[in-house]
C-alpha cells in the first residue's frame, strides 16, 4: 500500500464537517465536483421519487434487474457506435416490457422471469465487453459507477428526464397509488390496472436509465431502494414519505461526495454505507415506536386522528 496511513485522511474529512462552507467552496472550485453534485442531486430526486413507488409496490427485484440491464445496453451501444444514453434507455425499456408480461406486480411466478431476464442481460453484456476488449477495464465502472467523470451534457440530460418523470408522476401519481394499494378495487372502478402496471415499469426504466448513466448500476439501485425503504419505515403518508425519501437520498449523496473527496475510499462505498446507516436508524425508530410516541406527545389533537 502506497501513500500515507489511512487515519491521516480522516483529519481533513473531520475538518470538512467543522466548516462545511469552506469545504463546499473548496470542492466546488473543481468543475468535475460541481457536475458530480449537480448530477448526484438530480439522481437523488429522480431515484428517491421513483424508488418510493417501487418499494410501495414491492418491486425491488424488478428495480434491481432494471438497474443492471443498463450495463449490456451501454456495452452494446459502444460496440455498434451508438450513443451510450440510447443504449441505457433502450435496454431498460426493453427489459421493462419483458417484465411487464406478467403484469409487473410481485407474484409467485414472477421471480423466475425477472431472474432470467437479469442473468441473460448480464450475460449479453459480458459477451459485448469480451468482444470489445477496450471496454473490459471499464466493466467495473459501468457496474459500480464513477460519479467523477460526468459531463455537463449528461447533467442536462438527467435534468430533462427528472423534470419529465416528475411531471408524469404528478399527473398520474394518485392513480398509480390507487392501483398499488388496492388493485382489485381500482380495477372495479375502471382504472386500467394492467396498463398502469406496465406504464410504471416503463417510467421506472427511464428513471433508472438516466440515473445509471451517471452513477452506475449499484449506486442507482442504492438510491432507489435505501432512502425509500427508510422513508417507508418512518411514515405511512405518501406525500411526507416521498419528500423524506428525496431528502434522505440527497443528504446521502452530498455527505458521500464530501467524505469521498476528503478520504481515499470510493464514493460508491460511502453512498451505500451512509444510506444504509440512515435505513438502520429508520428501522430502529420504527421498532421502538419513537416517532409514534413523539407524535402523541406533540400532537394529541384531531390532526393525529386523521393520520
Amino acid at each position, binding site marked *: 500500500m502506497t501513500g500515507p496511513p489511512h487515519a491521516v485522511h480522516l483529519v481533513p474529512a473531520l475538518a470538512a464537517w467543522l466548516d462545511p462552507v469552506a469545504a463546499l467552496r473548496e470542492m466546488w472550485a473543481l468543475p468535475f465536483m460541481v457536475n458530480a453534485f449537480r448530477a448526484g442531486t438530480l439522481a437523488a430526486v429522480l431515484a428517491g421519487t421513483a424508488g418510493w413507488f417501487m418499494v410501495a409496490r414491492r418491486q425491488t427485484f424488478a428495480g434491481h434487474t432494471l438497474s*443492471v440491464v443498463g450495463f449490456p445496453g451501454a456495452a452494446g451501444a459502444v460496440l455498434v457506435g451508438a450513443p451510450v444514453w440510447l443504449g441505457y434507455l433502450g435496454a431498460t425499456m426493453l427489459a421493462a416490457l419483458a417484465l411487464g408480461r406478467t403484469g409487473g406486480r*410481485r407474484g409467485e411466478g414472477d421471480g423466475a*422471469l425477472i431472474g432470467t431476464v437479469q442473468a*441473460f442481460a*448480464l450475460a449479453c453484456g459480458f459477451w459485448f465487453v469480451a468482444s470489445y476488449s477496450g471496454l473490459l477495464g471499464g466493466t467495473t465502472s459501468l457496474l459500480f459507477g464513477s460519479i467523477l467523470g460526468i459531463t455537463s451534457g449528461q447533467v442536462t440530460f438527467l435534468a430533462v428526464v427528472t423534470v419529465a418523470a416528475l411531471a408524469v408522476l404528478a399527473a398520474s401519481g394518485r392513480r398509480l397509488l390507487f392501483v398499488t394499494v388496492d388493485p382489485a378495487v381500482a380495477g372495479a372502478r375502471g382504472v386500467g390496472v394492467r396498463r398502469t402496471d406496465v406504464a410504471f415499469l416503463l417510467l421506472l426504466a427511464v428513471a433508472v436509465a438516466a440515473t445509471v448513466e451517471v452513477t452506475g448500476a449499484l449506486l442507482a439501485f442504492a438510491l432507489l*431502494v435505501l432512502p425509500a*425503504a427508510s422513508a417507508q419505515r418512518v411514515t405511512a403518508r405518501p406525500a411526507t414519505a416521498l419528500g423524506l425519501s428525496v431528502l434522505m437520498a440527497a443528504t446521502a449523496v452530498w455527505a458521500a461526495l464530501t467524505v469521498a473527496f476528503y478520504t481515499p475510499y470510493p464514493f460508491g462505498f460511502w453512498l*451505500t454505507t451512509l444510506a444504509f446507516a440512515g435505513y438502520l436508524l429508520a428501522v430502529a425508530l420504527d421498532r421502538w415506536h419513537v416517532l409514534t410516541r413523539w407524535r402523541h406527545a406533540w400532537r394529541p389533537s384531531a390532526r393525529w386522528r386523521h393520520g
Partner: protein
Amino acid sequence: MAPVGPVAARVTGMLSHPFMVHALVAGTAVALVAGPLGYLLVLRGQVFAADALSHVTFTGALAALVAGLDLRLGLLGAGLAGALGLGLLGRRGRPDDVVIGAVFVFVLGLGVLFLSLYSRGRSGGGGTTGVGVLFGSVLGLDAGQATATAVLAGAVLLALAVVGRPLLFATVDEAVAQARGVPVRLLGVAFLGLVGTTAAQATQVVGALLILGLLAAPGGAAARWSARPAVAVPLAAAIAVGSVWVGLGASYALPSMPPSFSVIATATAVYAVTAAVRGIRGGTRRGSVLEATGPH
C-alpha cells in the same frame, strides 16, 4: 476453429483438452445442484434472495483477496454468512424484498471498497480479477478445482435429499407444516445456506452475476412444465445440465463466445420456449403444486 467433421469427432476433439474436461465436470456438478435448488426458489418465491446471495459472494471474494486469503474461502464464507443473515432477518426464514435489497446493496458497497483497496495494492490488476469473479472463468479451472467443485456439489445434493421432503411440505403449505411440527424456520435458513454454498462454488463456473440464470431459468421452466415435484425436480436438473453442455459445446465451436454467455443463453432459450408454449404464468402457483402432491 473446431475441426470439421461429424459430431462425434468434434466431441472427441473437445474432450481431448483437459481444460474442457475440467469445465464439463465442474459445470455439470454445479448444474445438477442449481436446477433443483432453482425450482425450490421459484416455488418459495425467493429468487431475489438467491440474486442477493450471489452478489454477496462477490464481496466475499474481494475481501479474501484483500486479506490475502484463498478466494474460495471468501466466496463460501460470504455465501453462508449472507444466507444466515437473510434467514434470520425474515419472518420464518423468508425476508421481505425491501429488506433483501437494502442489505445487499450495502454489502455490494463494501465490495466496491475492497475492490478499490485491492486494485490500489497491485496497481490496477483488481479490475480484471473483479471481472473474473463477476462473470466466471470456467475454462481456467484445474483438475483440483474441478474435483473440489464436484465434491461440494455432491455434499449439497446429499443435504438437499435429506431436507427435500419436509422443505417441500413447508414450502407448499407452511401453516400445516408448522402445525405438524416441521421446523419451518430452521429449514428456511438451511435452504438459504445450501443456496449460498451453491452460489459460492458456481461463481467460479459462470460468475457471481450469472449463477442467477442457472437457478432461475431451469427452475422456472421446470415449474411450468409440471406441477409435480417428482417430475419438476429432475427436469430442472436436466435443463441446467443440458444448458451447461450445450453452452460449453457452443463456446468450443465459436471461441469468440464466452462460455458463461452461451450457458446462460441456452438456459434462457429453454425458459423462453417454455413461457411461449405454457404461458407466462402457468404451473408456478403453490396451489397447483399442493394439488399435485396430494394430501399429506
